[in-house]
């Protein structure tokens, strides 16, 4: 009986594993096959990878899209971490009644669905387009500005700051560091793993973001990777091999980050429920 139950568990988990992995397998295999072979259901690696990649680079503006996505992801990750860690540190280390109230009000913003504020945000950026064209509609800046202040990351940093030894701050003050100096010289280096975890989540969110860039970026040279893939996916006579190679390229960065930094990855994900 016990053995039978064991078998059942293994069978169940194996089926789940196959279902989970198969789309990845098919994606990678298809990127090496010609479009006709993909339609015929070929399940073996082929010899068309180079051809698919050549088509991709010739026919589609994938380099531009990759560059745009990378710029947006790097800048937004950097700014998100800086702003959120300043706030998380500030709320925890300089506690006061007023700040606690402000913190709770900020947390409320986590309940706001993006779809609900999409239209007003679009109008907001439309209005500033005339006075500040560099951050107006159809600019890369507009694609990440609304995403860099998020209550989630402030909460995340505040939770982690609770574990930061307060003696270090006193030591810094005695050494004559300014309050901001303590933050940059002592807090930041000590909290490296917290930053790493947050960076992974922020980078993934930005790299994969679809709806807001779709709304705010209009010209083809501003396209990001998700926008490009969405366009390819809706074409009438799709070149499956080429599209699958594009999807593989788009998936690579996040997959690599996951495999090499699994511990930080999970820490970042769980950050929201700790404590």
């Amino acid at each position, binding site marked *: 009986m016990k053995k039978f139950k064991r078998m059942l568990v293994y069978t169940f988990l194996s089926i789940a594993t196959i279902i989970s992995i198969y789309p990845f397998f098919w994606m990678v295999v298809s990127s090496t096959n010609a479009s006709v072979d993909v339609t015929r259901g070929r399940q073996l690696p082929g010899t068309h990878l180079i051809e698919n990649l050549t088509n991709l680079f010739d026919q589609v503006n994938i380099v531009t899209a990759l560059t745009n996505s990378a710029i947006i992801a790097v800048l937004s990750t950097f700014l998100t971490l800086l702003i959120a860690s300043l706030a998380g540190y500030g709320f925890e280390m300089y506690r*006061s009644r007023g700040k606690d109230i402000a913190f709770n009000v900020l947390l409320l913003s986590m*309940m706001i669905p993006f779809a*609900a504020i999409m239209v007003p945000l679009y109008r907001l950026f439309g209005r500033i387009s005339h006075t500040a064209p560099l951050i107006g509609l159809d600019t890369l800046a507009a694609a990440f500005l609304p995403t860099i202040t998020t209550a989630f990351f402030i909460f995340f940093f505040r939770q982690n700051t609770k574990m930061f030894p307060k003696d270090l701050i006193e030591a810094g003050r005695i050494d004559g560091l300014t309050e901001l100096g303590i933050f940059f010289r002592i807090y930041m280096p000590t909290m490296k793993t917290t930053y790493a975890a947050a960076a992974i989540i922020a980078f993934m969110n930005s790299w994969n973001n*679809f709806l807001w860039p779709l*709304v705010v970026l209009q010209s083809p040279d501003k396209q990001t990777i998700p926008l490009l893939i969405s366009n390819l996916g809706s074409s009438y006579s799709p070149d499956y091999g080429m599209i699958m190679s594009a999807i593989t390229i788009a998936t690579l960065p996040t997959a690599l*980050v996951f495999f090499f930094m699994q511990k930080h990855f999970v820490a970042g994900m*769980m950050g929201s429920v700790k404590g």
Partner: protein
Amino acid sequence: MLKKNNIGWLFVLISIVGISLFYFYPMIDAFLLSFQSGMGANLEYTGLNNWMRLFDDPTFISALTNTFTYLIVQVPVMIILALVFSVMLNDPTLKFRGFFRTAIFLPAVTSLVAYSVIFKYMFSGNGIVNQFLINLSIVSEPINFLTDSFWARIVIILAITWRWTGYNMIFYLSALQNIDHSIYEAARIDGASTFQQFTKITVPMLKPIILFTTITSTIGTLQLFDEVVNITGGGPGNATITISQYIYNLSFEYTPNFGYAATVSYVIVILVVILSAIQFKVAGDKE
């Protein structure tokens, strides 16, 4: 010199300004917009017109019904599956635990757009799923997964479940590590079956985290957009359209009607608040 309290405010200032500007101000703007009508930027106040229009707008009713169908079918299936996986993987004597865990979690690293396009192709008329079903003689003719209303909804539900089950599983797995194994020992000695251990120990102990994942999944499902747009485009007809997609269409696909779009968007806000409150009430009956 600045007082310590005031320095503290400087640390949190950018966040307060940013969130007010990019979250709270738009919420107020959307609320005011919901009482205005007109094309593009030419808006004027029309009272409750937009709100009344909701009740006899067939597309809105489809979007609402679809969103609720996804919610009611998908969220429970996914939560139960994730719980089952996590309980199985929490057994220290199980072989290949790490492998199974990584494999089942893997879908959570894909971008929503990328996996949606893959699912679209897999479930197309001559796609790999139909070929598989025909080869195994489960069906004799290909199923119109994407062009039949019923099947299109099923595909959307399958896709979301594929993407998010492993993600939720990780939360349960980490919570399970905090449960003392001796509780299960004691239960076994008292003759509790595996199923009883699951319903009488595991689920009650994981209640807070189950509540957390249910709320995040609910909020996520209410905002469903990427999958539907990229797998079915909301079709056939409006059979799979969601509220978020309808808001997008009203603002950027059809002749722009920001006022009515804002009204529809407030429906999501109201739903998020009501459903979260209900889930808190149901799960937190004693605390």
